[in-house]
């Protein structure tokens, strides 16, 4: 399958990329890893007139702790996230998630920024970033702005990244104290989109009381979803089995899955409940280590 033709450019600076976006207008698209966009172009679901490839712009690929954040450059490949020492040591959720994203070849090219900017509730990083309380840095001609992850997803394939803007960094509050995270999705086969997926973050005090909690849900809502009611019941509690059960029940009630080839609504709600419970136990046990 061959895409419609387009004009390709590979600028070597961010400012050049932004001015090309302005010059080319609405039908220009940014190319990161291309592993969501190119398949859509091959199927002619997308037909941008211009592709602006970010690969030659230095300084967009990094994973580092700095100023109380874990900062992730938008062009960081999934595999680089998987292999980063700081991620393996402290942010286990990315190990859980990246292993389940597509397959190794796709992860060699797909980027974290692209996974978010694609704006698909079936992608895994949106729920992960919701659970972790991330912020997204977006660059334009006017400088940079920061958007909290809860304000980032607008709708199917649309995000806060407006025309003439480039997503440049994702940052999340650094792991602190007794901090544990976990992600799992049910999938029909290796590399499939989630039937349902749940991302969890908890932070505990010395007595085991929950100080912070984040729960993000994959592919069970038109937008990537925060399970706010579940989080509220966890924070300030001792995270007993009853509280975890209640939080999982609320997540399954609050999501809005649609029936498709992966399962019907009831099945997906059931998965959300089971996976939320398991991931909470997993994150809590990681936090206590």
């Amino acid at each position, binding site marked *: 399958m061959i895409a419609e*033709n387009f004009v390709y450019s*590979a600028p070597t600076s961010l400012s050049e990329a932004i001015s090309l976006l302005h010059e080319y207008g609405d039908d220009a698209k940014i190319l990161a890893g291309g592993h969501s966009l*190119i398949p859509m172009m091959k199927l002619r679901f997308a037909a941008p007139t211009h592709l602006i490839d970010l690969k030659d712009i230095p300084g967009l690929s990094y994973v580092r702790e700095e100023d109380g954040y874990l900062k992730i450059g938008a062009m960081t490949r999934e595999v680089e996230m998987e292999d980063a020492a700081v991620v393996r040591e402290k942010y286990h959720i990315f190990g859980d998630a990246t292993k389940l994203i597509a397959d190794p*070849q796709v992860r060699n090219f797909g980027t974290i920024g692209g996974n978010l900017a694609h704006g698909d509730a079936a992608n895994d990083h949106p729920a992960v970033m919701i659970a972790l309380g991330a912020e997204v840095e977006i660059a334009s001609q006017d400088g940079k702005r920061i958007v909290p992850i809860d304000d980032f997803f607008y709708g199917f394939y649309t995000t806060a990244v407006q025309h003439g803007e480039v997503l440049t960094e994702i940052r999340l509050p650094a792991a602190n104290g007794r901090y544990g995270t976990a992600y799992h999705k049910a999938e029909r086969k290796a*590399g499939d989109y989630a039937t349902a997926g749940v991302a969890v973050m908890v932070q505990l005090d010395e007595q085991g009381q929950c100080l912070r909690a984040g729960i993000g849900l994959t592919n069970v809502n038109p937008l990537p979803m925060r399970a706010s009611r579940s989080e509220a019941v966890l924070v300030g509690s001792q995270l007993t089995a009853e509280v975890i059960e209640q939080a999982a029940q609320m997540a399954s009630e609050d999501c809005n899955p649609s029936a498709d080839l992966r399962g019907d609504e009831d099945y997906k709600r059931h998965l959300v409940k089971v996976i939320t419970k398991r991931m909470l136990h997993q994150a809590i046990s990681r936090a206590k280590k």
Partner: protein
Amino acid sequence: MEITLTVNGTEHTVQVEPRTLLVHVIRETLSMTGTHIGCDTSSCGACTILVNGRSAKSCTLLAVQANGAEIITVEGLATTEGLHPIQEGFHLNHALHCGFCTPGVMLRAVELLEKNPNPTEEEIRWGISGNLCRCTGYNNIVKAIQWASAKMQNKELPSTEPEFV
């Protein structure tokens, strides 16, 4: 557009449309048909090659994205010394039947063994989860990769006797 690719050590400068997929340049412009097109949707892995050492699905990369890259295809695995250990492993373990998926699986395995010279069976199975084989049922592919792993580390070679279950 003019792009330059180094494929199996030889530099090629070719003219492509921006929309030309890398796999088509390899197969049609450079006439190296060892890289296969299976699903054409980045699911099956038959088109897997190495781009700057990383395994990639060449049906989902634009040729222009690989401008300046070092590419290895199945044609680049063997040397004048003989077969690559992964090819030897596939040969001795009967790890192919129709052979359609084989070039892609072997190149994926080359990167896997480069990053993790001594993988467990589970790591191998996760490692080749982006490559579909419809003939062998994967068991012999896993054995072939284990064999190549031993060979590349000068370890004792596992048996290549077929298992009858």
